């Protein structure tokens, strides 16, 4: 097992190199002069010369990349975003990442709490109107564009819930952890926690839709497959009640594919739910990338994408490793 984990860890290192290089290339493509792109065509000759020196822009692209990566690995330095407020990209990402984690976690909790029971109900009452109803809604859930659903929720519930950002802008919350729910609970501002929570409701509902629908579908399919197996028939033959068969025998085995799916989805959501965050102006990684794209800020695009890809790879790795613990049938050599 340890050797498996070590091997997977080692294998993800070259993957990270290749992905980051690809992102580096894509963010610098488009045929513009790199100095212009980084400075937004507004630099004085001195700044231009400094930026050229700083990012080795007069050298081949591989040298530029190696220098850039070296900065990240040795100093956590993602360069400076000259276009978006002239701040270090690393600092900007540091502020944007916690809100994304917060939103993704809230969405996952909704998906698990509603999706798994919905899938179970559907499997138990298979081919009844309950099943058709749940599966119909799930199919709608994966068919509906999340950004449209977000807009509909704003139309329908926008008067009850605050829209935009993760806290009332008039409230001054000291960013201790970056997680608004925690920071607002720690702050002296009256009603801050409730306000943060209310800001979270609609974005979390929107973001939860796809993982929720997929969880329900997978739970149903997986449970039905397990219910058809011999050991379930044995359990039934012993005279156990239907509920006990499902809860004690079938459910745990049926959960394995669900756990994989949830891990994968969580990785996606942590990657910045670009569309949901845009609809609700959520100050996370997704809106950061979109802002960077619209202001054509290559340093910000590149840094954010590398962080997102790294998160995604690490989460997937963690899911695979977790898998080995959850499922005793899997033996890694």
């Amino acid at each position: 097992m340890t050797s498996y984990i070590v091997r997977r860890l080692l294998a993800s290192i070259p993957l990270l190199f290749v992905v980051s290089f690809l992102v580096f290339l894509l963010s610098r493509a488009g045929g513009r002069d790199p100095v212009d792109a980084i400075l937004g065509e507004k630099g004085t000759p001195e700044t231009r010369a400094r930026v050229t020196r700083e990012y080795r822009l007069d050298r081949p692209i591989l040298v530029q990349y190696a220098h850039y990566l070296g900065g990240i690995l040795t100093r956590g330095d993602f360069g400076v975003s000259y276009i978006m407020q002239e701040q270090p990209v690393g600092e900007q990402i540091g502020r944007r990442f916690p809100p994304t984690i917060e939103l993704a976690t809230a969405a996952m909790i909704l998906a698990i709490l509603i999706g798994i029971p919905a899938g179970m109900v559907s499997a138990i009452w298979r081919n009844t109107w309950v099943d058709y109803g749940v599966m119909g809604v799930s199919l709608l859930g994966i068919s509906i564009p999340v950004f449209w659903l977000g807009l509909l929720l704003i139309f329908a519930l926008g008067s009850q819930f605050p829209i935009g950002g993760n806290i009332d802008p008039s409230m001054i919350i000291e960013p201790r952890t970056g997680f608004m729910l925690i920071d607002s609970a720690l702050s002296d501002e009256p009603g801050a926690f409730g306000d943060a929570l209310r800001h979270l409701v609609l974005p979390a509902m929107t973001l939860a839709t796809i993982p929720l629908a997929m969880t329900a579908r997978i739970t149903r399919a997986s449970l039905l497959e397990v219910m058809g197996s011999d050991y379930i028939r044995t359990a039934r033959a012993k005279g156990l009640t239907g509920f006990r068969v499902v809860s004690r025998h079938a459910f745990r085995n049926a959960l394995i594919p669900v756990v994989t799916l949830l891990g994968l989805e969580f990785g996606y959501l942590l990657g910045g739910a670009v569309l949901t965050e845009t609809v609700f102006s959520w100050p996370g990684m997704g809106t950061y990338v979109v802002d960077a794209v619209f202001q054509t800020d290559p340093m910000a695009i590149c840094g954010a994408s590398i962080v997102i890809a790294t998160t995604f790879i690490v989460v997937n790795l963690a899911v695979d490793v977790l898998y080995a613990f959850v499922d005793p049938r899997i033996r890694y050599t």
Partner: protein
Amino acid sequence: MIDKRKLKVLRKHKAAMLGLGLLTALVLFSATVDVFSPYEPGHMDQHRVMEKPSGSHVLGTDDTGRDIFTRLGHGGRVSLLIGLAAVGLSMALGVPLGALAGYLGGWADLVVSRILEVMLALPTILLAILIAVAIGKGMSALIFAVGIVGIPQFARQVRGSVLALREQDFVQASRALGASTLRTLFREVVPNALGPIIVLATLGVGSAILTAAGLSFLGLGVETGTPEWGAMLHEGRRAVERGPHLAIFSGLAITLAVLAINLFGDGLRDALDPKAEKKA
């Protein structure tokens, strides 16, 4: 592959037929919208912007006074075309890649698998955004971006099927008869792996439409002014204070199209899945 029996299963699949009907209706609407509508999709009437649905404009007008009904029809052509073309591109690249990786194994498999891993290391929409940033705006750029991000799905599916088929007798027989590797692969192996590819392609059109609409919604899709559902939703969101109808109708069109495709695709999978035959 699709014999009469499977077709019969499909025809009895109520959800699939509902999807097919819905999809046909949408295609017919898009194709014939000009017959019902006196307006040009690009015609702007500055005196009648963001009008609510009425007798003269069945679904109202948008923020530049264009008829939404007409634009939805033309948008359907664009959105469905983008979906189909993007999936075509994903298949054209993904199927041969996956087939070669699965059949040849060794270094070919290694190289292809690593490429796919790299592509899968970025969330779909982010990869599409990065490609769109690199190659610019416009319809062909959009098709390219959405098509590229769809490659791994096809390649993985085909690789898996080919791996399973590779050692079967009829493949060995083809090789024993002296057929070349490529001939064996594309004349014997791939045709036998077509079922799952068809299902994936069908469902893929739905997700391609969603990804493309997402990019257009962000403003990274088609050129401004092109009637496309995602772009209309983008305009609808911008004008939402003056009336929600543009956002509602364009989003509804995307949802109906994707739902129809998913209904049909699920039915197709049930019909083509050998395990499902017993149930039917």
